[in-house]
């Protein structure tokens, strides 16, 4: 896996047209992620978080402003896990996960399968290697997609509500795995989530977006020691951060 690289967005504006109506979606977003930093984006739904990730990944261009990344072109250098899991229905779960290695590490399919299979257990997916995505629960598909994206080993990875379909127990487990994987490989991560606990548990820094058109209304550093145990969620420092973020989200920060 490549070491994390810095990723920054400067003065981003994006407006969609819906029929003959303008739909300003992002209005002057600045954000940065240092090499190997874990950055979170939270905000009301529809405020442009998914759009921001598409712009960062190079799938779309902003109307104004720019994205700065060391590699050019960005498209293909920054992995994106979309909000819907985007697994290929015609590949088994194992082969979907292996695809991350085939594309990211240019591995041949047999080698990729061996390496991918070894990772399934940590995700509670070991009995489902041969299953097609259509037969799996939403939570299992999300875990598969997360694994695929991570194994691609990109220097920066964008995760769009990656754990939204998981029950809270499984979610806590996968969050721990995610932190461990990130501590091992240190890619730069931008995580969109609607779960404030998740943002605090995983991130070094959290950006809070306003309602659409999205702007950054607050930037909160999470200075909690790592690795963060599950029990950290009830520590006073954690609870304080949570109150602060919820306040910013409500717009009376």
């Amino acid at each position, binding site marked *: 896996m490549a070491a994390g690289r810095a990723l920054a967005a400067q003065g981003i504006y994006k407006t969609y047209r819906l029929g003959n109506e303008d739909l300003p979606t992002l209005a002057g977003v600045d954000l940065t992620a240092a090499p190997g930093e874990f950055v979170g984006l939270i905000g009301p739904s529809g405020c442009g978080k998914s759009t921001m990730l598409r712009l960062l990944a190079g799938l779309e261009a902003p109307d104004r402003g720019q994205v700065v990344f060391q590699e050019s072109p960005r*498209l*293909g250098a920054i992995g*994106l896990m*979309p909000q*819907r899991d*985007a697994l*290929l*229905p015609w590949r088994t779960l194992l082969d979907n996960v292996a*695809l991350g290695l085939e594309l990211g590490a240019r591995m041949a399919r047999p080698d990729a399968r061996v390496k991918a299979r070894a990772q399934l257990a940590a995700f509670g997916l070991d009995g489902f290697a041969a299953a097609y995505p*259509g037969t799996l629960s939403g939570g299992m598909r999300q875990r598969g997609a997360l694994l695929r994206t991570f194994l691609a080993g990109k220097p920066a990875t964008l995760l769009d509500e990656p754990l939204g379909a998981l029950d809270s127990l499984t979610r806590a487990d996968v969050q721990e795995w995610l932190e461990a994987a990130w501590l091992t490989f240190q890619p730069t991560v931008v995580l969109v989530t609607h779960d404030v606990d998740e943002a605090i548990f995983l991130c070094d820094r959290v950006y809070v977006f306003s309602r659409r058109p999205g702007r950054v209304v607050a930037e909160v550093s999470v200075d909690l020691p790592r690795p963060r145990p599950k029990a950290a969620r009830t520590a006073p420092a954690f609870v304080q951060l949570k109150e602060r973020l919820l306040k910013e989200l409500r717009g009376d920060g």
Partner: protein
Amino acid sequence: MARRYGPPATVLVIAVALWQGAAAAFRVPSWVLPSPSLILSTLWTDRALLLANTWVTLEETLVGFALALAAGLGLAFLVHWSPLAERALWPLIVASQTVPVPAIAPALVIWLGFGLAPKVVVVGLVCFFPIVVATVDGLHGVDHELLDALRTLGASPRRLFAEVEWPSAVPQVFSGVKIAITFSVIGAVLGEWVGASAGLGYTMIRASSQLLTARVFAAIAVLSAAALVLFWLTVALERRVLHWKFRTGGSAG
């Protein structure tokens, strides 16, 4: 099995029984309308003649269908990849279907003679259109989120086609192929009617000029059976190729 084939088999048996009864009751001369039992016995007595001519028609059908498949897929890929090709070719592809094939068959005989070639061309003309339309629709219907996710992982355009666009189009391609294969036998007969020295279509023309009406119907029975077998083979292949879809309970056209 019984649920599936029971109802059509029952209707068929009743219709044949009525036909047999009517032929006997009204003493219809057999050269006007042969009774089912006479057709059945003709199938047996003429088996050598029918079988020899079946192979001829089947060869025309399969060669023509193979050409239609190659041309249909090739045109569909071209139209899908190149907007210029789409603008230049699509109207012509559609317009080609307004040309009545029976009307140009005589011209094909003039250009290509009485052998295999003109029949193959007629079969190809009849079959390629459903394949092109279905394939183009299938390719256009691809889920863009799947494409985007794999793009960010570094998939090349060729890889995107092999991993996403083509597999997602295959169910539609099979719908087109099922229509085409059903028409293909009719196409071969049409080609033989205009000028041939062998084949089931030729056998029918000969038999009808000799007022051997039972033989005409026997040939029709063999043609229907051949078309049904080709259709079933296509469905069996479809179930093998699209096992991911059938196993996950998704509908397949």
